[in-house]
């Protein structure tokens, strides 16, 4: 096959923001190439540069052996199907399609012949006289394709052409586009953020992120051998675990060693391990390479998406004391002040300062008439590094004051020896009103309980992904409630045809060739 288009180090910035950071890409004749990536990754910009609607700041575009950067769009042998079709509203279907041919001043009978053939190709023979504004999205889409193809371009650019269609129509059009591409035998360059669309239609997929190409390859290559975590996540659902490459063909994750087919990594190199959901099988627990319990089952139409948890996250449960304390009212000064008791960890005592105390006690004073805050001038307390309860008094300049207790306690942490993880959280006091007003309750609960988790191996933070509580924040009344914080366990998504019960103890098996290893640094 012949190289048709070569992008050489294309750089583009908009107002100083780099959207393309040096793109190098070769596109061959008769290929169906998909530029895939999330919005803002630069894929549309690259397409528009090729179409001639934008000019790159650096780099060259070679088209059929010639540099075309300075060739205006109307002279390029490239046609585009625009995102919102851009059909001319003042023309009917026939005239929209004939537009390019009329510009080229082709004879009338040739134009008619070609337009008729295009209408047939896109299944719109009956619609020649129809006004384009009266057509459905799918029909407009076909007109746009016909209008571009009738000019017999060497390359057709398609900018998210199916984005505006509903799911069913989109699937139909995907097949139809592929069929049309094979029939006319020209290069299609297709821009989309839909990975499934890319996998279905393309000969070659170019995965982009932040103005850079992540990976170029066939759909199977990209799917089975993603070069990094980003690509693996973007292309299809995946299980990605931290692992270590012990030697060629031997990887360790979840503290177990597994044979694999990858090689060429440094000994003990830290890697990401990818196993696709469809490559995992659920077996009786005793036969499994990994053991776990069924955490959730989701019916997906043709299969069940079953989540198997092989490691339970580290969790800690704390008490939330809900009160409906009324603020202290100083009638003479016309001031109100409020604060609540709070728990402190032994280790926090040394670093304790006034700002922290105010924040933790949620101390505030205000004028009840204007609702304006009044600053707290004085904080008096004594504290020792011992379990116990220590009073703290907050007062304003006018002498309005409130006293609450700081309760120092250790044993605010849970250590998970097996997975070298530690989680920390403290009991806390809250007013019912504050809970009612919370708009992001889980985040607030984490803040109030000072909850955090980290790895004991390297002290890095571990995300707390589960916050469990058993109350309704809208209707909560004073009392004591339990809140549980937990880190994420190891979970595997498995595609199964059988439906398992949640809580079933099962095993997981997979083949060495199903393990895909990705280097951490790429």
């Amino acid at each position, binding site marked *: 096959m012949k190289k048709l288009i070569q992008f050489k180090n294309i750089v583009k910035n908009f107002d100083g923001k780099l959207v393309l950071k040096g793109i190098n890409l070769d596109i061959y004749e008769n290929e169906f190439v998909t530029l895939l990536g999330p919005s803002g990754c630069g894929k549309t910009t690259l397409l528009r540069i090729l179409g001639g*609607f934008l000019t790159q700041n650096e780099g060259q575009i070679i088209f059929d052996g010639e540099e075309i950067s300075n060739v*205006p769009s*109307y002279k390029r042998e490239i046609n585009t199907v625009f995102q919102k079709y*851009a059909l001319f509203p*003042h023309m*009917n279907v026939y005239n929209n399609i004939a537009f390019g041919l009329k510009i080229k001043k082709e004879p009338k009978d040739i134009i008619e012949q070609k337009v008729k053939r295009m209408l047939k190709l896109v299944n719109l023979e009956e619609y020649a006289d129809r006004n384009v504004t009266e057509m459905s999205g799918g029909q407009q889409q076909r007109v746009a394709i016909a209008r571009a193809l009738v000019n017999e371009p060497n390359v057709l650019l398609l900018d998210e052409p199916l984005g505006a269609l509903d799911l069913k129509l989109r699937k139909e059009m995907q097949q139809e586009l592929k069929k049309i591409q094979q029939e006319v035998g020209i290069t299609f360059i297709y821009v989309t953020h839909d990975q499934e669309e890319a996998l279905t239609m393309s000969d070659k997929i170019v995965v982009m992120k932040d103005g850079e190409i992540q990976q170029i390859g066939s759909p199977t290559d990209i799917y089975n051998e993603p070069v990094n975590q980003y690509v693996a996540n973007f292309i299809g659902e995946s299980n990605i675990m931290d692992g270590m490459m012990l030697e060629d063909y031997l990887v360790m994750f979840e503290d177990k060693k597994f044979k694999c087919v990858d090689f060429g990594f440094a000994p003990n190199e830290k890697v990401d391990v990818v196993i696709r959901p469809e490559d995992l099988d659920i077996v009786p627990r005793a036969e499994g390479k990994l053991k776990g319990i069924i955490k959730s089952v989701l019916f997906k139409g043709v299969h069940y998406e079953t989540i198997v948890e092989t490691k339970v996250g580290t969790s800690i449960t704390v008490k939330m004391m809900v009160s409906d304390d009324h603020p202290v009212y100083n009638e003479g000064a016309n001031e109100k002040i409020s604060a609540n008791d709070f728990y402190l960890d032994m280790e926090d005592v040394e670093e304790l300062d006034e700002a922290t105390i105010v924040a933790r006690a949620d101390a505030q004073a205000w004028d009840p008439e204007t609702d304006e805050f009044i600053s707290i001038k004085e904080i008096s307390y004594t504290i020792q590094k011992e379990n116990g309860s220590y009073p703290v008094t907050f007062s304003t300049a006018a002498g309005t004051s409130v006293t609450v207790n700081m309760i120092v306690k250790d044993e605010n942490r849970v250590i998970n020896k097996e997975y070298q993880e530690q989680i920390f959280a403290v009991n806390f006091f809250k007013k019912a009103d504050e809970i009612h007003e919370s708009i992001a309750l889980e985040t607030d609960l984490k803040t109030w309980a000072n909850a955090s988790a980290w790895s004991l191996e390297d002290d890095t933070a571990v995300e707390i992904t589960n916050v469990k509580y058993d109350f309704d924040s809208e209707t909560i009344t004073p009392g004591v409630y339990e809140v549980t914080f937990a880190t994420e366990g190891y979970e595997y998504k498995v595609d199964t045809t059988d439906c398992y019960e949640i809580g079933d103890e099962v095993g997981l098996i997979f083949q060495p060739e199903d393990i895909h290893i990705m280097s951490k640094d790429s």
Partner: protein
Amino acid sequence: MKQYRTMALPYIVWMAGMIVAPMLLIVLYAFTDKGNDVATIRFSLENFARFFSDQVFMSVLKRSLFIAVITTAICILCGYPIAYVIANRSEKSKLFWILLITLPTWINMLVRTYAWMGILQDEGIINHLLSLVGLGPITMIHTSFAVVLGMVYNFIPFMILQIYTSLTKMDKSYLEAASDLGANRIQSFLRVTLPLSIPGVISGITLVFLPAVSSFFIPKLLGGGQYVLIGNVIETEFLTSGDWNFGSAISLVMAIIILFSMYLTKKADTDPAANGKENA
């Protein structure tokens, strides 16, 4: 729904009193004799017969229509390029130019027309400048040139604004599509921009032609006594001759001509499919 309808009541009363009633009065006057009172109404078509049979009135009518058509045509020919240039400038500069275009309309039309009298007079600034280089004097005031100039000057902002609006509303992707399909800038303009801006041109025509055909003070001031247009005739009938019946009849004829011309322009506008086929 109910309460919304009651909210419209003041407007209905206003429209009935200020628009419908005077219109009906004009119709009534047009179809009756002079010297009616409430008790005795005598219907007659004599006013219309007089208007259509009198050669003088007919030539005034023709002249008025002719002047209005010329004015509208000049407004399109000058206004379109101006609107096009402004519409293709940067956002900031667009605002500035549109401000410049609308600025004169902040000043009373009469005052501006008086200013033109001063400029065009035999001893006005133009003839003065011409005499410095040994030319002129050229008689400009009280000619059809002066009348058309005054009308174009007064009404062209409406044309520019209408075309400008339709050009800026146009989706730029149509131009990209045209360029993509091989059209250079001139072809893109002729085949895409121009046809898509026709609605703007048509509402511009309505806004220029209507005041131009019925204007009376511009021909009075710039055309002098010699240059009579239909607006002046109506004015004279009402204010000088006191023949309200005849004046109403002429007004009615004008209203019908205007309605008919609006109908024609509307028809040309709202038939995009026909427009498309014609190119096939």
